[in-house]
């Protein structure tokens, strides 16, 4: 059954975490459109792109079943990048966002829209023109995108993420995705007053940095650079703030399939890829580099490096209880 569902499964045999295949066959060319446009990336890739999309089409026929039967294979495929044309659908499946509609058959979204005024309507109006200000969909005031964004945000308020979702799905689906993100992906804690989850992520991140790159950790510390200065945006928007589009969507593919761990991995990868430079720099230059890393790093290299950084799930749990213990102790 598996064989009929997937015409080719070259990904199945590969090492779970490796990126070696990325240079060769199908997958890599697809998501990295910018790279494909470069000289050397000629027509030969086009056919493999088509094959890649075809594979995904087949997967999408019953992605839930495929997910159950071929968990690791699907994980690999997702890590290589979901084809853009199927992204909206796949994301909703991964987050199981449409479950919301079966739980609330009476049209929750439409009902909330009819509320005369949302709690934070003022905040929303202010931020609306400042979310993806350069993207075609959102550039015009009262344009198509800004209106949709406003409507969805009236029910919640997570501008950049919602903006990204609206590029791939309609308002009601984006709304359901947000609900799933807040709930299943625990993002609610990121936005609650006091940003409790962000604080925990910073702690975990700083400890991971210490474990993976002790020298860099010490250097940053000596230069008084801490994670709040550069990583708030990474964690709060899951790289939708000021990151190139192809990086953003690749991270989101993996984030929706595998959870928050990818955010830590990408964050560590950003530091890893630039550590030689960072070592030579002091406070201001470091901050500048980390804030701009978004534009200088290549999507493929970043995702590959991120996936090569191993963070056993137990470690995050351990660090979490360490964090909780520290908080309980009066300082």
């Amino acid at each position, binding site marked *: 059954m598996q064989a009929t569902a997937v015409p080719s499964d070259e990904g199945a045999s590969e090492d779970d975490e490796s990126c070696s295949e990325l240079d060769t066959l199908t997958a890599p060319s697809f998501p990295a459109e910018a790279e494909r446009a470069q000289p050397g990336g000629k027509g030969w890739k086009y056919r493999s792109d088509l094959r890649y999309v075809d594979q995904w089409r087949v997967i999408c026929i019953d992605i839930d079943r495929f997910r159950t039967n071929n968990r690791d294979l699907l994980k690999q495929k997702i890590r290589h990048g979901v084809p853009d044309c199927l992204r909206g659908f796949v994301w909703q499946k991964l987050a199981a966002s449409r479950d919301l509609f079966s739980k609330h058959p009476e049209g929750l979204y439409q009902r909330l829209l009819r509320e005369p005024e949302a709690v934070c309507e003022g*905040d929303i109006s*202010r*931020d609306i*023109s*400042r*979310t*993806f*200000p*350069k993207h075609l969909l959102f*550039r015009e005031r009262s344009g198509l995108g800004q209106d949709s964004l406003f409507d969805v945000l009236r029910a919640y308020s997570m*501008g*950049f993420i919602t903006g990204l979702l609206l590029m791939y799905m309609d308002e009601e689906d984006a709304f359901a995705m947000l609900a799933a993100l807040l709930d299943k992906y625990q993002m609610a804690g990121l*936005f*609650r*007053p*006091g*940003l409790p989850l*962000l*604080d925990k992520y910073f702690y975990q991140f700083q400890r991971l940095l210490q474990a993976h790159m002790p020298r860099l950790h010490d250097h940053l510390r000596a230069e*008084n650079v801490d994670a*709040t*200065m550069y990583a*708030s*945006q990474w964690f*709060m*928007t899951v790289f939708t*703030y*000021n990151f190139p589009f192809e990086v953003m969507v690749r991270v989101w593919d993996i984030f929706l399939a595998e959870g928050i761990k990818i955010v830590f991995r990408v964050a560590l990868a950003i530091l890893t890829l630039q550590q030689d430079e960072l070592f030579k720099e*002091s*406070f*201001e230059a470091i*901050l*500048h580099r980390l*804030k701009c890393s978004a534009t200088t790093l290549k999507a493929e290299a970043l995702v590959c490096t991120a996936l090569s950084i191993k963070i056993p799930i137990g470690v995050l749990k351990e660090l979490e209880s360490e964090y909780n213990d520290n908080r309980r102790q009066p300082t």
Partner: protein
Amino acid sequence: MDAYDYLFKFILIGDSAVGKSCILTSLIENKFKKGSSHTIGVEFGSKIINVSGKRVKLQIWDTAGQERYRSVTRSYYRGAAGALIVYDITNRDTYHHLINWLADARTLARADISIIAVGNKSDLKDKRAVTFLEASRCAQENEILFLETSALTGEGVEEVFVKVAKMILNKIEDGMQHIEEGLGYHGLFSGLIDPATMMSGVHAGARSLLNEASPAEPASRCISC
């Protein structure tokens, strides 16, 4: 070589969407950034300006205005020598909240912090909702400085920073005089900056060590913020 006499740390605070980030961009890049994103967490910028014959390096933290970021931005008050509380002259609410921001700065920052109220968007004359006079009075009553700016045209932007820097420099001079007159390190208690301590958001740069016998620590590096 970007040598400087002093390093001052500033923070930009105020309601969401009043133009804090645009003021910073205007100061540093001399241009207005159209279609900028709202700030998440904090942003950072630095610039060396000339104030009363001294080269002063400003390290500026630009904070997110939204209430929910308060827990992240709070920690940046502590190290600041100067604070710019920005409001939008076309939006009275942002002006009314000035008092809250001031209270925040007074409780979270050092006692000797120099504060200026900044009425931004002065180019939007038709939409003005807060007069120059009332804001100026309010600033006087609260013993803080005041200026209006337009991040769009750049009008008043550098002046704001210069004005605060001047005030801090004056405090340093007074503090030094205090010490020279043998009054000891009482500067902190009288609201003056004591240049001999490394605790404040003020640090002497390498240049001042070469030029004059400064009582400051031989460091141009900053301490934790």
